């Protein structure tokens, strides 16, 4: 599957809700494939959310976050058109970065 990071923003009265959907297997290293051998550990470790270039949220996460992670955050004072940037880094050094404007 391609790796689109699907971001949806909803501007509300008190805050803007940001919902991000990432494509990642988040393997725990305990799971076996159909051949019966262990699938190596593989998960997103770090993620960050930037608003207009400034980091507003940094997360350290683990293989205990579900596959195809879905996060929701709330930003105060963000208005439509503001630049939102979400990035992640996994334990194999793979990265993904997606930029979007707040709806």
């Amino acid at each position: 599957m391609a790796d689109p990071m699907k971001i949806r923003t909803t501007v509300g009265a008190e805050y803007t809700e940001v919902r991000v959907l990432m494509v990642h297997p988040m393997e725990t290293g305990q799971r076996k494939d159909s051949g019966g051998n262990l699938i190596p550990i593989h998960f997103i470790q770090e993620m960050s959310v930037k608003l207009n270039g400034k980091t507003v949220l940094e997360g350290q996460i683990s293989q205990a976050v579900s596959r195809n992670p879905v996060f929701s955050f709330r930003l105060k004072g963000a208005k439509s058109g503001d630049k939102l940037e979400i990035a992640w880094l996994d334990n194999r050094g793979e990265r993904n970065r997606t930029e979007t404007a707040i709806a």
Partner: protein
Amino acid sequence: MNPFRRKTLAALALLLVPLRALAAWNKEAFGAKSAGEALKSLGIGASADSKDILIEAPQIAENGAVVPVEITSNVPGTRSIAVVVEKNPFPLVAKFDFSESALPFVKVNVKVGESSFVRAIAEAGGKYYTASREVKVTIGGCGG
């Protein structure tokens, strides 16, 4: 691939992670086998139970692979929230640091190995506040 080789590969992979990373991933904390150890490695001291930490999670999850957890901290000045599933093999699930305009709120789907308490620990002004909810994990389907 035998377990020994997989372990060394995993360890190697960790070394490759560039030093200047985002919030550096706390290897000890996430490798800790007990909640207490994990929090100590994060530098989190004793935490007071607080009703200002709200945890929204299903009491019964039909499947432990995806348990939605929503955490809100109403303690003023909250700068970080750690999420722990006490009975997981590695209890520390995630830690979020908030700054600038991000509110101390997060919603994330987590894996709960077996019925357990899900605990949130918030940090504000150098003090720690905590709350927890029990999540019962059940087996759906015909088990076959």
